[in-house]
C-alpha cells in the first residue's frame, strides 16, 4: 500500500520532470518542423472522422434526451441555449479530448514504447540525434495544436446534430437555431473552452509520450505503456478540466 502511494508520487514527479524537459527542449533550435507537420496530420486529420461522428451523435442524443424535460417546463424554445452552452463549454471539449486520449495517447504510447523496446531511441541517441526533441517535442506540440481545432469541428458538428433534431421535431429552422445559440453564447463561454482544449491537447501528448518514452523493456511493456497512457491521460483530463473551470470562473464571473 505504502509502495503504491510512493509509486503514485514518483509518477507525478517523473511527469513533472518530463514536462519541464519538454519546455526546455522546445526552445532549443533547430525545431523539427517537418516531423511536427507529419504528426499534426496523423493526429488532426486522421482523428477528424472519429471526432465528427462522436460529437454529431452526442449533440443529437443530448437534444433528444433533454427535450421531454424541457417540454414539461414549457421551455422548448430554450433548447438551443441549453444545448449550445453545454456543448461549447463542456461537452464538446471533453468528449473530443477523451476520444483523442483513446486514439492518440495510446498510439503515441505504443509507438514510442515499441521504439524504446527495440532500442531505436537508444540508437538515435548514439547517432547524435536528440530523440526527445525529434519524438517527444513534436508530438506534444502536435496534440496541443490539433485538439483545439478538433474541438471546434466537434462543437460545430454537435450543434448541427442538435439543430437537426430541433428542426425535425420542433420545426425550428437552422437559422433560428444558430441565431439563438450565438445569442446565448458569449466570449466567456468560448474563450475558456478554447484555452482549456489547448491544455487537454498538451496533457494527451505529454502522458502518451511519457508512458511510451519510459516503457519497460520487453514486448509486454509496450502494451502496458499504451494502456496506462490512455488511463492516465483520461484521468488527468478531468483533473485539468476541473482546474480550468475553477480558473475560468475567476476571469469570467458567471
Amino acid at each position: 500500500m505504502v509502495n503504491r502511494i510512493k509509486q503514485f508520487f514518483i509518477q507525478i514527479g517523473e511527469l513533472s520532470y518530463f514536462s519541464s524537459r519538454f519546455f526546455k527542449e522546445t526552445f532549443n533550435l533547430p525545431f523539427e518542423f517537418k516531423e511536427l507537420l507529419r504528426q499534426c496530420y496523423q493526429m488532426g486529420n486522421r482523428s477528424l472522422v472519429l471526432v465528427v461522428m462522436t460529437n454529431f451523435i452526442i449533440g443529437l442524443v443530448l437534444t433528444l434526451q433533454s427535450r421531454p424535460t424541457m417540454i414539461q417546463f414549457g421551455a422548448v424554445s430554450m433548447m438551443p441555449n441549453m444545448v449550445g452552452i453545454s456543448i461549447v463549454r463542456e461537452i464538446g471539449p471533453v468528449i473530443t479530448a477523451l476520444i483523442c486520449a483513446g486514439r492518440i495517447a495510446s498510439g503515441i504510447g505504443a509507438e514510442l514504447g515499441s521504439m524504446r523496446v527495440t532500442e531505436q531511441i537508444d540508437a538515435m541517441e548514439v547517432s547524435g540525434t536528440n530523440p526527445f526533441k525529434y519524438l517527444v517535442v513534436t508530438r506534444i506540440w502536435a496534440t496541443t495544436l490539433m485538439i483545439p481545432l478538433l474541438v471546434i469541428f466537434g462543437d460545430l458538428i454537435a450543434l448541427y446534430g442538435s439543430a437537426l433534431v430541433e428542426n425535425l421535431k420542433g420545426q425550428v429552422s437552422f437559422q433560428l437555431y444558430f441565431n439563438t445559440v450565438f445569442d446565448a453564447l458569449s466570449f466567456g463561454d468560448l474563450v475558456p473552452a478554447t484555452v482549456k482544449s489547448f491544455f487537454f491537447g498538451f496533457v494527451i501528448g505529454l502522458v502518451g509520450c511519457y508512458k511510451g518514452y519510459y516503457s519497460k523493456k520487453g514486448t509486454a511493456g509496450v502494451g502496458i505503456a499504451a494502456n496506462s497512457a490512455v488511463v492516465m491521460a483520461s484521468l488527468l483530463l478531468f483533473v485539468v478540466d476541473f482546474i480550468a473551470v475553477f480558473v475560468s470562473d475567476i476571469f469570467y464571473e458567471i
Partner: protein
Amino acid sequence: MTKTKLENLRLGIFVVIGTVLLLFAAFLIGNRQNMFKKTFEISAIFKNATGLQNGNNVRFSGINVGTVNGIEMVNDTTIRVKMTIENSMRNHIKKNAIASIGSNGLVGSMLINIAPGEGSSELIVPGDELQSLSKIGTQDMISTLNITNENAALLTADLLTVSKALTEGKGTLGRLLNDTILADHLQQTLKNLKQTSESSNTTMGELNRIVRNLDLEESAAGVLLNDTVSGGRIKNIIQNLENSTFQIEKITLDLNTIVGDIKGGDGAIGYLSKDTILVNQLDRTMRNIEQGTERFNENMEALKHNFLTRGYFRKLAKQKKNEEKQ
C-alpha cells in the same frame, strides 16, 4: 515525398478551416454584443433598476439596437443607466423618446425598451439623456393581484354563508323560499285583498251613481247636495276615492307579481336574511292584515245590507259565490 505533400495539403486545409470556424464563432458572438459596430452612448435616469445588469439588451420599438453598458447610482433615488446604441439608430431615435425597463417574457432577463415619443422632435445626439418611465414591476402587479384575491376570497365566503342561510331557511328570504305555508298565507291574503278592493270599487261606483240620482230631491241629502260648493267637494272626494281604489287594485296586482317572483325564487333581495324576528313580525302583520280584511269584508257585507245598496249587491252575491267555489 509526394505523400508528405498531400498530407501537408490536407493538414493545411484542416488547420485553415478550423481557425476560420473559430474566428467566425468569435465574430458572431462579438457581433451580438455590438463589439465590432460603431456605437454611441446615451443614458436615462431611473428610480429603480429592477434587476438590470450590464449587457442587457436595449430595444427600440422591439428591435435590438444596443446593450446596457453601465449602471451607476447618482443618489438614493436616481440611477443613471448608460446604453450603447448602434450608430445607424441615430437617424431614428428622437429626443422625446421614452425609455422604460421591461422584461423579456415572464422569466426572461431584463431589458430597456425605448419607445418613440409623441409628436415631432429633434434627432438624438450622443450623450443625450432620455426621459424614463417607471413601469409597474411584476412584483407590484403580483401584490395588487394578491389584494384582489383576498377580497375575492372574502366575498365568496360571504356568499357562501348567505346561500347556506337561504337553503337552511334562516332569515326572511330563507323563510319565504322554504316555508310553503307562509307563502300560501300570503297568497290567500293577497287574494282577499284583491277581492276587497274589487268590492270596494264596485261599492264606490254604486255610491257615485246613487249620489248622482239623489241630486235634486228635497231631502236632507238633496239639500246637502244642492249646496254646489260642498257638492263639488264631495264629488271631488268621491273622485279621489275612486282613484285610490284603482291604485289599490294596481298595487295589489303588483304585490301579486312580487309574491309570485319571491315564490319562484327570482327575487334578489339579499342580505337582510338573518333577522328571524322580522319574519315573525311579518307573519303576525300578515295575520293582522288578514283579520283586518276579514273585518273589512264584514263591513262591506254590512254595507250590502244597507237599504241604499241592497238591490245591487244581491246581483253580485251570486257571482261571488260562484267565484269562491271555484
